[in-house]
């Protein structure tokens, strides 16, 4: 079904530099965005996640059979990598002493983040992002892919169409249905949380 992806992988396995360039160019930034939406990792940790996910994918290229799109296959590898990072972080000590030295204590107590990065605002923002991603992931896969590509990766409708193997008109129609499904799920999740307004 995903002949173009299978061909790209075959060329990569044969050592074709252009195929590697195309693979990396199409996926590195997208995976970084995919990981950033689903975590609150700092940029250095995100870089590690993307790097590890791509290296794992490369090492398992020969197992790719084209049953899912390369994009979906890579996203799943990235999802596993995020879960692995999450498990490792959970094993770390949750508390760090700030009283090791007077200088450290002074420096820490003098720190103040910009207003939009104050803990409360940042938490709100993270919660909302998390809620949006959870709703997205509850949608049928094609809907989620279309919305994430269009509004997250900023692709034009024509590019979304190409990505999903559809005509432009079909992609527009899919996006409209996906938005509607998102709206319903969002309203339901907001209602369940007794939050009031969905927006």
């Amino acid at each position, binding site marked *: 079904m995903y002949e173009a992806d299978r061909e790209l992988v075959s060329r990569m396995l*044969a050592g074709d530099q252009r195929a590697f360039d195309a693979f990396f160019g199409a996926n590195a930034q997208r995976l970084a965005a995919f990981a950033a939406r689903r975590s609150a990792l700092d940029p250095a940790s995100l870089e590690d996640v993307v790097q590890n996910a791509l290296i794992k994918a490369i090492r398992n290229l020969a197992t790719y059979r084209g049953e899912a799109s390369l994009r979906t296959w890579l996203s799943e590898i990235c999802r596993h990598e995020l879960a692995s990072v999450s498990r490792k972080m959970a094993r770390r000590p949750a508390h760090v002493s700030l009283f090791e030295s007077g200088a450290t204590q002074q420096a820490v107590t003098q720190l103040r983040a910009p207003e939009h990065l104050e803990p409360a605002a940042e938490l709100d923002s993270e919660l909302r992002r998390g809620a949006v991603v959870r709703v997205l992931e509850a949608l049928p896969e094609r809907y989620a892919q279309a919305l994430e590509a269009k509004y997250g990766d900023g692709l034009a409708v024509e590019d979304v169409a190409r990505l999903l193997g559809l005509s432009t008109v079909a992609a527009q129609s899919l996006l409209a249905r996906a938005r509607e499904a998102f709206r319903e799920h969002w309203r339901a999740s907001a209602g369940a949380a007794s939050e009031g307004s969905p927006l």
Partner: protein
Amino acid sequence: MSDTPQPKREASDAEIEQLLVSNLSTPPLSPEATERVRAAVSQAWEATTSPAQTHETRGHARHWGRWSGLTATSLVAIAVIFFAIKPVAEQDVIGSLARTSDGGIERTQGLIWHHALKVGDPLRVGETLTARSPALVALAEGGTLRLAGNSVIAVEAASQLSLEHGKLYVDKPVGVIASHPLRVATRVGLVEPLGTEFEVLSNDQVVRIRVREGQVRFSGATGVLVATVGTELLASSGGQVTQRPVPTFGNDWQWTAALAPDFAVEGRSLSDYLQWISRELGRPLVYANAQARERAQRTILHGSVRSEATLDTLADVLSSTSLTYELADGAIRVHFTR
């Protein structure tokens, strides 16, 4: 008027789109981070696709080998005909090999000439040169070309080289550059000197350009950039170019100083020598006072010095004079001592 939310209100399409955009858009990986990831992933890919890894790949290599053998045979025949009818004298000489160590430079022309160059041998348009060890080339129109070991260049024209991989350094004295520029083509763009000293490095992941004196113009897939002295450009195969400041002196430049052309000291003024070593080391020359400058101009050197441009040789030369030096803010600061 109230800020109380309206639970029953249906979100409009525009609001849904805004909600998605504001919560799904993320800052991209920085160009530096992308390059680091690319280098690591590329390495993993190369390891995966090396012939020893899979039967499929080995089969492909054998298949390709058979066809490449046939193709090579045909190309050799064409090359023989080509070189038989093209007089060697017609080919432009761009310079000659001035110095090399073990390994030297290997020359390939077409598919039939393949031999080591000796010091003094010319380099001609159409040749591909592989520097097995560091090498210094005296350019016919003035200036030098320095090649790091394991570098491969193709001489495409009298005024253009192509760096296939490795590292090179071009030094064209002021005055020569305008009339006889030497451009360097890389797989991601063209480097044209607007000034006089620059270094280009090319490997599988990236092409790096460092400007040590003057300016260079880099024309890549995404546009044209002018980089000034003390700037590094990092260009990836994907077309991204990043730039950052770099020092014009220090360990990274030692390989070029080790390949500095000989400076004939006999009968030359000390100030000439100081200018030369200042340029070779990438450190500005500063006289602490007028007396130091005057003494450097009036002092005439005799004998010989090691050709390497290092701070040690500078100290050797100054030890027999009434001048001393110190390094201050990257510059060589020369003092007069009674």
